[in-house]
């Protein structure tokens, strides 16, 4: 695999992670709890899109959009039914509740669609092949959607009333409410935005690989890692964290650590030492631990909490 190829794969991965970690971080920012059901909502959308696309014969783009919107609305419903009752509870209580929610969602999907891997029905794509890399149209789409999501979030936060209200609620919820900002209304929008973006991310991952009820759990550790890495509660941190993690996961397997350990051949031990592919999921965990030891508030984290 060439260097350019690894860079492209890293950017694709970063775009997918961005879509998921942005939502996790704004929910944390406004509601003050780590939502362990976040990626499971995305799995619901993945299978809704599968139903629309394969069972009902919709083309994939409308199927993905409709599924993301429906799942966003579904998240609002779950918030009203469950999380709203826990607004005054401590973060740990809400977190454990979200864990129960995650188990229920994942297994509902598994009960309906079974545990086997499935694929969307999309026409075969011809990748662009050059001397240095190959990229599929889908991967270009993933990067485009990721970049648009980042731009969209920036515009939303800084150029809309909703964004201003969101930032105010995050800085000081009591003051925001006293100033007449309707906190509950903002929470509704936050859930919708967070979960529909996560849904798009999940569907794109499903398109690039295959879909499984278990995929939500497979991605939860990288998504949390990206979020914490950048500074939990900070959308720009989530973007940066996703980028760092996307590169780390791909370069982690590409770099010959034997070279580094022997100081580029200076020590005369020219051994090959690669991280085995089976340990790919461990890379994000090792980075997570390093971040927590060295800079627990993340790269862009604010000072005020601990």
């Amino acid at each position, binding site marked *: 695999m060439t260097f350019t190829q690894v860079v492209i794969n890293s950017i694709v991965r970063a775009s997918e992670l961005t879509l998921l970690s942005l939502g996790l971080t704004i929910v*944390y920012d406004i509601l003050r*709890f*780590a939502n*362990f059901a976040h990626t499971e909502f995305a799995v619901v959308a993945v299978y809704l899109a599968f139903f629309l696309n394969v069972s009902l014969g919709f083309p994939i783009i409308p199927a993905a959009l409709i599924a993301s919107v429906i799942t966003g609305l579904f998240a609002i419903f779950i918030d009203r039914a*469950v999380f709203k*009752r*826990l607004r005054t509870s401590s*973060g*740990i*209580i809400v*977190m*454990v*509740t979200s*864990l*129960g*929610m*995650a*188990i*229920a*969602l*994942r*297994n*509902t999907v*598994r*009960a309906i669609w*079974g*545990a086997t891997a499935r694929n969307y029905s999309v026409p075969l794509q011809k990748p662009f092949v050059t001397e240095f890399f190959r990229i599929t149209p889908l991967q270009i789409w993933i990067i485009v959607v990721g970049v648009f999501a980042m731009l969209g979030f920036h515009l939303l936060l800084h150029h809309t009333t909703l964004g201003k209200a969101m930032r105010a609620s995050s800085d000081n919820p009591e003051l925001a409410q006293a100033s007449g900002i309707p906190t509950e209304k903002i929470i509704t929008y936050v859930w919708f935005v967070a979960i529909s973006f996560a849904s798009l991310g999940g569907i794109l991952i499903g398109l690039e690989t295959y879909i499984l*009820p278990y995929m939500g*759990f497979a991605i*939860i*550790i990288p998504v*949390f*890692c990206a979020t*914490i890495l950048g500074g*939990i509660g900070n959308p720009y941190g989530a973007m940066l964290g996703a980028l760092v993690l996307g590169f780390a996961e791909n370069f982690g397997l590409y770099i010959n650590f034997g070279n580094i350990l022997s100081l580029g051949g200076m020590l005369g031990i020219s051994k090959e030492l690669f991280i*085995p592919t*089976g*340990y790919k*999921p*461990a890379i*994000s*965990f090792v980075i*997570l*631990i390093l971040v*927590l*030891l060295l800079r*627990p508030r993340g790269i862009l984290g604010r000072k005020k*909490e*601990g």
Partner: protein
Amino acid sequence: MDLINFLVYLAIMMGIYGILSLSLNLQYGFTGLANFGQVGFFCVGAYVSTIIVLVFKMPFILGLIGGMVMAGFYGYVISIPTAKLKEDYWAIVTLAAAEIVRIFFLNEDWVVGGGPYQGGSFGIGGIPQPLRALFSAYTYPLFYLAIVLVCLASTYLIINTLTESPFGKVIKSIREGDNLPQALGKDVKAFRIKVMAIGGCFGGLAGSLWAHYHGFVSPNQFMPLETFIIWAMVIVGGKANNRGAILGAVIVLVFYNSTRFLKDYIPIEEVTLASLRMVVIGILIVVAMLFMKEGLIKEKKTTY
């Protein structure tokens, strides 16, 4: 005879999960540490005990102790990076650590030094059962049940003594917020690490008992799902109450195993049934958190 066999099996599982539930209850219920990777201790205990007994040909009791020590050490190590941080971080770190443990035993088959179908994803079979030769096939499970019950009783006594002692008061105050214990000169970080290590030991004990009962361990037995079942036990039974933790284990296991017979009456596939069972476990956690925060047996609150 079949029914009796099944009941003995169920009782053994209740004992093993009761220990796991007591251990998680010490960490979450009493200290407020959201350990989402309880299965990691279970896995370390099972594998270390298996390796000691199978590879090093040591007696069962040393395997049991070795499993406990290593699982406790694992708890000590994973709590170092998060000891000063909020619960959110505990949750994700313990969850991730348990996955790494599983991935390690999935990828490294040299740890058992076995033949072509030993270790890695094949699992490890032929784990010797303690004093197996002294009993017949029918009486052995009863003997094993006795071992499990002795372990459960010891775990209960030790954890209960601990939580009723001044140590218990300190960890409960850590759960309620960090300022009071600090004002009293207690090192919050050290207490949290101790709780994870002690809880880890008992998780390891359960793992060792599990491995020698089944005679087989494999990375597939230690999926994150197990952790969530143990969480349901603690939450339903009553957090910060040791009798509640055991009651929770009994209730959840009765539910889990009774649904097994459902497929004899309704035409339903095994995988669908397994999923529906977990849907119920998930909903049980949500409903308990919403309407029954204290669980079935409430925490004993003493006023001074």
